[in-house]
C-alpha cells in the first residue's frame, strides 16, 4: 500500500523492510511539512507585524532605537500632562455648568495660554540669546530654529520678529529676510526655554552650531543664557482664510 509514497531507490536498498520503510518515510515527510509550516507561520506573523506595527523600525540601529525611546518617553510625559490639564479644564467647565455658572477664569487663562503658545501674545521667561555675526544663509538659520524647537524652545524670535507657523527666515548669506524685513549680517535670535538644555543642545560637539561653523566659516554664533526676556507677539494673521474648520 505504501509503495507509491516511496521512491524506488529506497525500496531497492532496504530490501526486506519494504513495509516498514514507507512508514518511516511518511513520518519524516510529515515532520518536514510540519517544520516548514512552522517556519511559514513565524515568517508570516513577522511580515504582518513588520508591515502594520512598526514601519521602518527594523532598519534602525540600537542607538537610533534608544534615541527614539528617549524622544517618545519625553513626548509621552508632555502628552500625559496635557491630558491631565484638559481633564481639569473640562471638569471645571462641567462643574460650573452644573451650578448654572460660567468658568470665566478658566476660559480666560486657557485663552491666554493658547495665544501665548501660538505666538499671538507676547511672552516672557528665561532662555537664551544667540548673536549671529557674519554672513549666514536662510537654510542655516532655519536649521538653528529647528534645533531650538527640538530642544524644547517654547517661543522664538529672530531680529525682533516672533517665529510662528508660516514665518520663514530665507535668503542667501548677506541677503536674509524675515516677514519681508531685511536682516543685517549681525542679528539676534532669542528663545524661551531651559537655558541649560537649549545651550547644551546647540553647542554640543557635532551639534548645529558646529555644523553651521563648517558651512559658514565667516559667521560667528555666540550663545548666552538669559534669566528674563520678553518676546513680542506676531503681527501675522494666523487664522486660516482658505481653510475652514472641519465639521
Amino acid at each position, binding site marked *: 500500500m505504501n509503495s507509491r*509514497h516511496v521512491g524506488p531507490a529506497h525500496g531497492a536498498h532496504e530490501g526486506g523492510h519494504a513495509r516498514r520503510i514507507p512508514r518511516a518515510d511518511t513520518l519524516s515527510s510529515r515532520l518536514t*511539512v510540519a517544520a*516548514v509550516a512552522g517556519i511559514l507561520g513565524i*515568517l508570516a506573523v*513577522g511580515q504582518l507585524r513588520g508591515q502594520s506595527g512598526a514601519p*521602518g*523600525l*527594523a*532598519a*534602525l540601529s*540600537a542607538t537610533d*532605537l534608544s534615541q*527614539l*525611546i528617549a524622544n*517618545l518617553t*519625553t*513626548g*509621552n510625559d508632555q*502628552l500625559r500632562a496635557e*491630558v491631565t*490639564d484638559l*481633564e481639569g*479644564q*473640562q471638569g471645571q*467647565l462641567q462643574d460650573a455648568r452644573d451650578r448654572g455658572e*460660567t468658568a*470665566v477664569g478658566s*476660559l480666560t487663562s*486657557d*485663552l491666554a*495660554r*493658547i495665544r501665548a*503658545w*501660538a505666538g*499671538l*501674545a*507676547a*511672552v*516672557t*521667561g528665561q*532662555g537664551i540669546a544667540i548673536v549671529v555675526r557674519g554672513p549666514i544663509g536662510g537654510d542655516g538659520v532655519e536649521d538653528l530654529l529647528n534645533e531650538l*524647537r527640538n530642544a524644547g524652545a*517654547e*517661543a522664538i524670535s529672530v531680529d525682533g520678529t516672533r517665529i510662528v*507657523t*508660516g*514665518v*520663514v527666515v*530665507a535668503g542667501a548669506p548677506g541677503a536674509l529676510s524675515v516677514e519681508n524685513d531685511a536682516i543685517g549680517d549681525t542679528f539676534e535670535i532669542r528663545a*524661551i526655554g531651559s537655558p541649560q538644555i537649549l545651550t547644551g543642545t546647540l553647542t554640543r560637539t557635532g551639534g548645529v552650531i558646529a555644523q553651521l561653523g563648517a558651512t559658514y566659516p565667516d559667521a560667528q554664533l555666540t550663545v548666552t543664557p538669559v534669566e528674563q526676556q520678553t*518676546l*513680542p507677539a506676531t503681527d501675522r494673521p*494666523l487664522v*486660516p*482664510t*482658505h*481653510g*475652514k*474648520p*472641519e465639521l
Partner: protein
Amino acid sequence: MTAIVARFRGLPSVQVTLAVALLVLGFLVAAQVAGEKPRAQYTTQERAPLIQTVIDLQAQQEAFKAKILELRQKIGDLEAQDPGAAASLRQLYADLEDARLAAGLIAITGPGLAFRLQDGTPGAGVDSLVSAQDVRILVRELWLAGAEGISINGERVATTSAVIDIGGSVLVNSAYLAPPYEIRAVGPPDLYDRLRSSVAFADFVQGRIERNGMSLSVAELASVDLKAYAGTVNLRYAAPAASGQP
C-alpha cells in the same frame, strides 16, 4: 498533456503539499529580505526588546493624542452649549475658537496640495534616502508660497514642531514617521503656481530630488483635510507677558 496530468496525479499528496509550502516559504523569505532594503539591517540581540518598547510607547502616544483631541472637542462643545452666555462671554468663546484655529488645534479643510516624497531606488546610497532636511525644505517652501496649514504623515506642523532625523526616518512632534512622506498643505487656490515660481523650490527638485533619484509627486486638490495638532500647549518656561509689554 494527459501524461503530465497523470504523472501529477500519481505524486504523493505529501510531496505536493511540501512543494507548495516550500514555494510559499520562498516567497515569504524573498518578501522579508526585499522589505528590509534599501535601509540597513541590524541583527544584534538587544534590538528586539528595544523595538517592542518603541511599539508600546507609540501605542501609548496614539492613545494620549486621541484622548487630547477628544477632551478638546468636549471642552469646545461645553463652551458652545452655554445657553445663557452674555455677549461678553460669547466674545470670549469666539476668541478661544480663533486662537485654537490659529494655533492649529482644530482640524481644517480647504483647497491645497498633497505631496508624496519617497526614497530613491534601493541600493542607490544614503543620498537617495529622504532626510528630515528634505522634509523641512518642502515645508518651508510651502509656507513661503502662502500655505495656511501643513501636515506630515498626518502630524500637523505647529509653531513648536521640529522635524529631525532618526536613523533613516524622521520624528515630527515626537511621532516616528517612516517614508514615504505625505506632506499636505491648505492654502490659496494658486498655491502650486506660487510654489513653482520659487527658485529655491526648483533648485530643491532638480538639485536634490532628481539628482539623487528620489521621487516627489504632487496632486492639486479642491479639498485637503488637515488633522488638528494633538500635542501639548502647556508652557513651562514662558508666561504671557503683562499687558503693555511688547
